[in-house]
């Protein structure tokens, strides 16, 4: 599965959603258990969770009657890949710069 970079960035740009990921990094939680940790309304918590879910950062599994939210850190790798493209970009550019300044001495 591939994740959309822009969507993942947007998802983790919000402080509430980052805190939700923090909590889920420690343990799986239901929407209710998460809502207890925030001062915002339950519908607001639910909508944040939906954004996380839509971007693959959270998966929902059933445990008996409970719907449990679990962190899926894999989408964060798309950010790492994106940074990797820049690293390669600089390697290439600096190679060109080096050969240019070292060539045709004045």
């Amino acid at each position, binding site marked *: 599965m591939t994740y959309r*970079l822009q969507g993942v*960035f947007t998802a983790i*740009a919000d402080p509430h959603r980052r*805190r939700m990921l923090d909590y889920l990094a420690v343990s799986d939680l239901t929407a209710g258990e998460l809502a207890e940790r925030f001062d915002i309304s339950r519908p607001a918590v639910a909508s944040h969770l939906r954004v996380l879910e839509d971007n693959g950062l959270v998966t929902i599994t059933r445990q008996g009657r409970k719907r449990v939210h679990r962190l899926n850190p894999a989408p964060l790798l798309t950010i790492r890949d994106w940074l990797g493209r820049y690293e390669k970009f*600089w390697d290439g550019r*600096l190679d060109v*710069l080096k050969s*240019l300044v070292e060539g045709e001495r004045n």
Partner: protein
Amino acid sequence: MDDIRRSVDMHAPITRVWDYLTDPALIAQWLMPNTFRPELGYDFQMDCPPGIGSSAPIDAKVTALEPPAGGRARLAYTWKIDKPPVTTLLDIMLTETDAGTRLDLVHSGWELAEPDRYVHDRHAHGWDHLLFNVLKSLLES
């Protein structure tokens, strides 16, 4: 997120390397077509090649301009990416060496859209843990 750091030793005088960093026609030869001018605070644009995450020209602003003096030079500019929206900083330092010039490049500021708000968040440490440790363990497994 980690900074991108690169260091390259070049067999060329510092003034020549500096010219390639600050003359628009010379910058275009190794980096990108641009509207750069060597003036502190100057706003300019760079035409980003496809494939590194910015579809529009990159908006940039000169934030440090220290021409070669005493064996050192420094150039820095902001580098604003549209997808995803982040303003990064490119900082290039030159140091004279026996063999020529050493170039140290740091491309930093790969943080998220609202860093200021999060700095004051008491869970900032938790986020560091998530991004650095969870991600690190994923990458190294």
